[in-house]
């Protein structure tokens, strides 16, 4: 596992802890299909939430949330639809983004709901 992969997966672990603390149930992690990968799928009340997690070890290349481009958002929408096809019982769907910034000053986590 490379350093960035390790950073990414530890960021996802932090995001899962955060979501659980918020009262969500985790339905799926690192779900893959031909279109790509969804980091986390959770259930928040009656809403199914598809979560994209971005982790950075510094803001030298910009804030993690800035790395979520319109192209990535479009792929997330297609992935969310693919997940819904593969699973049953989805009532409402939401796509969230979680930024994990781990630099020398510590770890900060930002959760942005309904990004598209």
């Amino acid at each position, binding site marked *: 596992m490379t350093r960035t992969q390790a950073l990414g997966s530890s960021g996802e672990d932090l995001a899962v802890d955060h979501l659980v603390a918020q009262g969500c149930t985790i339905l799926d992690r690192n779900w893959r299909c031909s279109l790509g990968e969804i980091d986390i799928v959770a259930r928040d009340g009656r809403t199914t939430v598809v979560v994209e997690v971005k982790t950075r070890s510094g803001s030298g290349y910009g*804030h993690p*949330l*800035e790395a*979520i481009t319109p192209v990535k*958002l479009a792929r997330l929408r297609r992935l969310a639809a693919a997940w819904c096809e593969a699973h049953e019982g989805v009532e409402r769907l939401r796509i969230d*983004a979680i*930024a994990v910034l781990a630099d020398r000053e510590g770890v900060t986590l*930002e959760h*942005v*709901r*309904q*990004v598209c």
Partner: protein
Amino acid sequence: MTVARTLAVALHGVDGTLVEIEADLANGLPAFTIIGLPDTALGEAKDRVRSAASNSGCDLPNRKVTVNLSPASLPKHGSGFDLGIAVAALATTGAVDTAALDGVVHVGELSLDGRLRPVAGVLPSVLAARRAGARMVVVPSGNGPEARLVAGIRVVALGSLREVLIHHGASLEPVPVEAIPVARPDEVPPAEGDLGDVVGHPEAIEALQVAAAGGHHLMMLGPPGAGKTLLASRLPGLLPDLEPDAAVEVASVRSLAGLAVGSSLVTRPPLESPHHSATMASLIGGGSGLLRPGAISRAAHGVLFLDEAPEFSGAVLDALRQPLETGQITIHRARSVARFPARFQLVLAANPCPCGQAESADGHCTCTPMARRRYLGRLSGPLLDRVDLRLTVRRVGVAQMTGGGQGSTTTATARARVARARSRARERWTDIGTGLNSSVPGSVLRSAPWRLAPHDRVALDRALERGALTMRGYDRVLRIAWSIVDLEGADRPTAEHVGHALYLRQGL
């Protein structure tokens, strides 16, 4: 606080409208959107604002920032909104107290390092802000002297975005920066030549004074080298200093045209002498998107001199007709309307024919009669009808050159004479609400108590009967007669004054 507001000014011509800049901080992926009909320069503000903010030690929030320029339907141009957008966007994060921004107008462009760049049109912007009742105007240091020409509003000139934020109460460490100066240094106004330089031409010098006293438009016809250009360049020197309101209007137009305004109002009337290749847009004003003032507006309250008038395009010359009547020009484009002042004094100069020798004593005209007719025919009748004084300028003879030496009339004496004449006219026409003979309605001149006695106006009535004068021409001769009377200090025009006026009118 997620919504912050501040003010800016959208200019259309010399008029300005206050624009409210609202910035909203919403939950969402980082984005910076400007809405409310920005043009390209204004749309690019988002990149300037982002860099300038982070280089001023105050990053934009990593959230969705939407900036709305209200009224949203009014098209907005230029980079002068940068500062207001940056301040509003940063105020959404609480870096600046939003209460401190109430009634504050921000004008200025941001450079990427956070310093403020001077912009064009600050003077009319500050005037518009004062008219709309703004509390304070923040401008770049380079525009400070220009903005302070407007009395009655607090002007704060600062060098960088950081200084502006500190001024509004942000807790940042001040970092001294070198302010960006205005791109153009103050131009030394060209010296107005003296009337005493003119050799000979006593009639022309007298006619120039009549034109200056009454605000009459003037046309000079003569062979090349006769001194038409020299005479025309002396006319602004004869005009009195500008009134304060006129001086502000002149400076506003200069500011809109991107010319230096300096730290004090110019009180001498401007002279514009465009080349005859001038296009409609350069003379009248215009352009796509941002409408800019043309030569007629830069010459407002001064003199517009068109040398070689028949060489101008006919359409361009005829476009002068409307501003000559109304004293202002309103330019309409699909998306915007702009008003500029255009109360100028027109001076036309022309040769009598393409070779220039017609009617001169020492040369032979080689033009065919048709060519000669066509040449002056390019000046349309309606335009010439608006020109009060028509003067024939002849070549100076050897006798005048060696005998007379320098002319006896200097600019100083002539200007004093013109000033006296103008004050007489102003006193006389106070009830009519004008100060110049050239703008007195004809009906006033032709009715009591200003109607001339029949024996004084007999020559004029004869000319009208013969068809040599139109009714408009009749009124114009009366106006010239009053200007001659004012110059001489006489009481009322007599037959002699009317005769002189007729000569000046019919000089062609």
